[in-house]
């Protein structure tokens, strides 16, 4: 019997049969792992198995390649704090939805795990959440090998007047170097490089850039499924903020 213990953020719990669920947990040391939880739809376990909650898990299977079984213990509940907060609900579902789509199974990502716990801890802070979410998406891209390089112009090497991002390389392009290719490049919102305002619409514009790379690089590489709709609703809420 193969067994391990860890803790992590619950990403999803799908019904399996009449009383069980198949849960996906982003574990600190084991990455995204799935397992059956017997009695997962019970009144006792259902509140624990809400996305974003931190759980202590014990995973066991006869062979490594088996789906395996989880036993879970609640560590920290986030669901109760965010149920009445629309922005937090959409952000939580965007985070857990994206991780469920693009994170390879059973591959540890300790830095991304810490960043994920960081952004989930800020769900109820409406002032900090939008920027924290943007930084989390940048971290997601970086940790999975598609990090944006926005410090210098990929054409000239200068580090001022950077106005665009190349959709092919994810590197910055200065306004003067863009020339006739300007229409094919993505705009570079200043907030993406830690400059300018970090108001809702600025962050929404920056998320359009990170979203492009998530959709065209990560999603194409890992999943056939569409981007979580909650992410689009989260961005729409940000865009309406003054």
């Amino acid at each position, binding site marked *: 019997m193969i067994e391990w213990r860890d803790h992590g953020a619950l990403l*999803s719990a*799908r019904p399996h049969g*009449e009383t069980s669920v198949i849960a996906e947990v982003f574990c600190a040391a084991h990455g995204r792992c799935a397992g059956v939880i017997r009695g997962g739809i019970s009144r006792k376990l*259902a*509140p*624990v198995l*809400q*996305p*974003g*909650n931190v759980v202590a898990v014990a995973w066991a299977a006869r062979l490594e390649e088996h789906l395996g079984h989880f036993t879970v213990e*609640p560590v*920290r*509940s*986030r*669901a*109760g*704090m*965010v*149920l*009445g907060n*629309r922005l937090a*609900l*959409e952000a*939580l*579902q*965007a985070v*857990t*939805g994206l991780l*469920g789509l693009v994170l390879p199974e059973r591959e540890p990502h300790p830095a991304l795990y810490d960043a994920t716990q960081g952004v989930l801890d800020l769900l109820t802070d409406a002032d900090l959440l939008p920027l924290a979410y943007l930084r989390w998406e940048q971290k997601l891209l970086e940790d999975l090998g598609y990090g944006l390089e926005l410090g210098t112009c990929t054409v000239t090497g200068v580090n001022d007047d950077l106005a665009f991002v190349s959709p092919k390389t994810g590197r910055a392009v200065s306004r003067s170097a863009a020339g006739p290719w300007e229409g094919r490049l993505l705009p570079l919102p200043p907030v993406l490089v830690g400059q300018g305002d970090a108001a809702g619409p600025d962050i929404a514009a920056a998320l359009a850039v990170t979203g492009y790379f998530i959709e065209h690089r990560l999603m194409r590489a890992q999943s056939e*499924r*569409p981007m*979580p*709709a*909650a992410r689009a*609703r989260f961005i729409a809420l940000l865009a309406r903020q003054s």
Partner: protein
Amino acid sequence: MSGKGAKDIEALIELMARLPGLGPRSARRAVLHLIKKRGLLLLPLAEAMQKVGTTARECLNCGNIGTGDVCDICADDARANGQICVVEDVADLWAMERARVFKGRYHVLGGVLSALDAVGPEELRIPRLIDRVSTETVNEVILALPATIEGQTTAHYIAERLPQTRVTSLAQGVPVGGELDYLDDGTITAALNARKTF
């Protein structure tokens, strides 16, 4: 068992085993019981299932299950009190009816928004709800959706689309007979956030 009759019984057992709460062994016991009580149970059950199979349909107005185009609740003028209770599923509607406290009409969404299962507003009866609110005399929409991440996301989505209507939702917190010691911290947090003056 052997022969054609046995095959029919096996087919019945297989069908029964697909019902929620039943497995092959319990389906076999249920079928045996039905056969033993042929006149009392099997034939009336078959007749009732035949009848429901031909008449049961979704209410065109609210999504409830009834035997006509419009369900009994929607057809009852006494329930047109200006309140619409929005529920996820017909089972939730039946639960509300069991409590006998709500005297208005219902709207069954047929699910909740789900990123995981790619369920969007168009897959649910949200456009029909918005249409009902604009055409019927509605002064309150009560959201009786699950206290889950997806249920409450759906609730917020609906509330945003009904800016001219009073939208309320069920309270969340300590259940009747519940002791704090046995509650999860999410429920305690929700209950504390929804506290009221005593």
